[in-house]
């Protein structure tokens, strides 16, 4: 069964000058362990599609199932639970909470999911080692570099062992070398069994995916199988 399956997804934004269709009739499925890169020019609807797939936004029409469950009819609590347990999110601007340490930022989604304290501590330790930042556990975001912040953000997204990780321009705020390290880390995440959907402008990074989907004017215009 696909981790996520979208059929004929459309998202229309009402605007003062008239409605704008950001995503138009997109259908796609992401299987377990899949790695999809969403590419296309700015404003083509990549991020909107990612938000729809991440159950953050609601489609104007079309259906979306996560692990076979139709999310269209779900309320806020159920949608939040799906995001918490099944989907991980990585943002371009990291969005780490500045008042928490790196370890506390990683621990946060687990605490919200009701994971026991000892299990949380063990998992935090495991994830810090995974992203190679064990020594930075007690550092606050302001004391970390951009690359380190994004690693912590990836660790946070993996905290509840999601089946799918969505990343919106995860290397967008980083220099080339740091971006490459992040790309390698995400590669490792995918290799360890987590399905990945990334939005990126970086063609080199996109080539790491198994499939590259290209969008234009809200429509999927091509699909390339890389591996």
């Amino acid at each position, binding site marked *: 069964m696909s981790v996520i399956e979208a059929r004929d997804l459309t998202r229309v934004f009402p605007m003062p000058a008239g409605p704008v269709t950001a995503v138009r009739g997109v259908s796609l499925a992401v299987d377990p362990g899949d790695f999809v890169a969403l590419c296309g020019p700015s404003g083509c609807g990549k991020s909107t599609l990612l*938000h729809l797939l991440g159950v953050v*936004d609601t489609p104007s029409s079309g259906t979306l199932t996560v692990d076979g469950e139709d999310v269209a009819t779900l309320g*806020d*609590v159920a949608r939040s639970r799906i995001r918490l347990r099944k989907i991980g999110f990585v943002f371009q601007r990291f*969005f780490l909470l500045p008042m928490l340490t790196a370890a506390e930022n990683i621990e946060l*989604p687990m605490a919200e999911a009701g994971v026991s304290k000892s299990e949380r501590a063990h998992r935090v330790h495991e994830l810090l080692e995974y992203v190679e930042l064990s020594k930075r556990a007690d550092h606050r975001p302001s004391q970390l570099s951009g690359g380190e912040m994004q690693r912590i953000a990836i660790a946070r997204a993996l905290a509840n062992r999601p089946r799918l990780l969505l990343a919106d*321009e995860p290397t967008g705020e980083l220099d080339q070398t740091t971006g490459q390290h992040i790309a390698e880390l995400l590669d490792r995440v995918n290799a360890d069994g987590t399905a990945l959907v990334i939005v990126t402008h970086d063609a080199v990074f996109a080539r790491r995916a198994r499939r590259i989907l290209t969008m234009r004017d809200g429509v999927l215009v091509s699909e390339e199988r890389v591996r």
Partner: protein
Amino acid sequence: MSAFAFALRSLVRQPARALLGIAGVAAVGALLFDMLLLSNGLVISMERMLSTTGYDLRAAIGTAPPGRGPLIEHAGAIATRLRTLPEVARVTPLRLSDGLVVHTARPFAVRVMGAEPGSVGAWTVLEGRDVRASGEVLVNQHVLELLDARVGGPLELRTSAPGVRTVTPPFRVQIVGVADFPFESERGSTVGLSLEDVDRVSGGGGAQSADQLLIATAQGTTPAAAKAAVERAVPTLTAMTNAQVLVRLQEGGLSYFRQISFVLTTVTIGFAFLLVTVLLTVSVNQRTGEIAALRALGFSRRRAIADVFAEAVLIVGSGAVLALPVGLALSRLLDWILKGIPGIPASLHFFVFQPRALLIHGLLFAFTAVAAALYPMRLVATLPIAATLRREVVS
């Protein structure tokens, strides 16, 4: 991490802002607490003063304040008659007048109080003995100091009450003791005479006239029943229970303090509401990206709202708790200022602590915390996750 722990971290993150907010709430909270103490403080203090005299009824002609209404003629005879009533335990006729001590280089004004010799509750003799006959006077400590005299010395009194002919010669009496007079102001000067002597000082012929009769109710009788009995026995008298006196004071002389207390309570609550609403709203607006990210990571709307509410509770709660000691200290200062009003009895207080005030203080601040958090909570509740994340990236 609980909503409160999370909110605490948010506050610690911006210490200057949090401290200023809490200090602001504490300052308005202190004023609010004081206004709650003031709203009933004077009444409670007056009630305590009235009850310490041991009398629960005050009978006079009409309802004018003591010393302002017509005199009860033949007060001694009326008191004797009232003492025969089964509802009455004790009666003390009392007369108040204004006088001038004239045999010193600098004449000074005194409050002249007249009672029957041996009256209970009219005054408390501290030194020497009580007034037993005409020509004897009790003075308070302040008068003794002003005169630089001793018990046994002379004192010349003249009335300064309006409406009394000033051609009356000074009245010479002998100081027989020092007394503590009820309702005495901080540096007030009071002398106590027999009823007849107060009449003589006032230019009369020594009549037993009184302003009011203090009446103690007999055991097993209510003040209301005694009031009815007194008014039945002497129809020209109007008796008031202590409770009625208090109601009258609340509606009359004390109403200013109730009004200002009400107005300032409303203003301070409004101020605290504005302060916390603005603090939280700006705080939420500055963190929309973080909030949207947390929501994207799976935090429910309810949880995000709880975080804002917890922050409001922490700011308002800390401010409200801090307001109590500050308010108590401030109330001392305000009480001291207000006790400078001429003629205010030394034992009267404007700000009196009552558990009820503490409860209302807590309830009002709880209400403020909820009301102040409503708008920012609504902002969080209606925050569009996707649009906010998009906007954060674009900005």
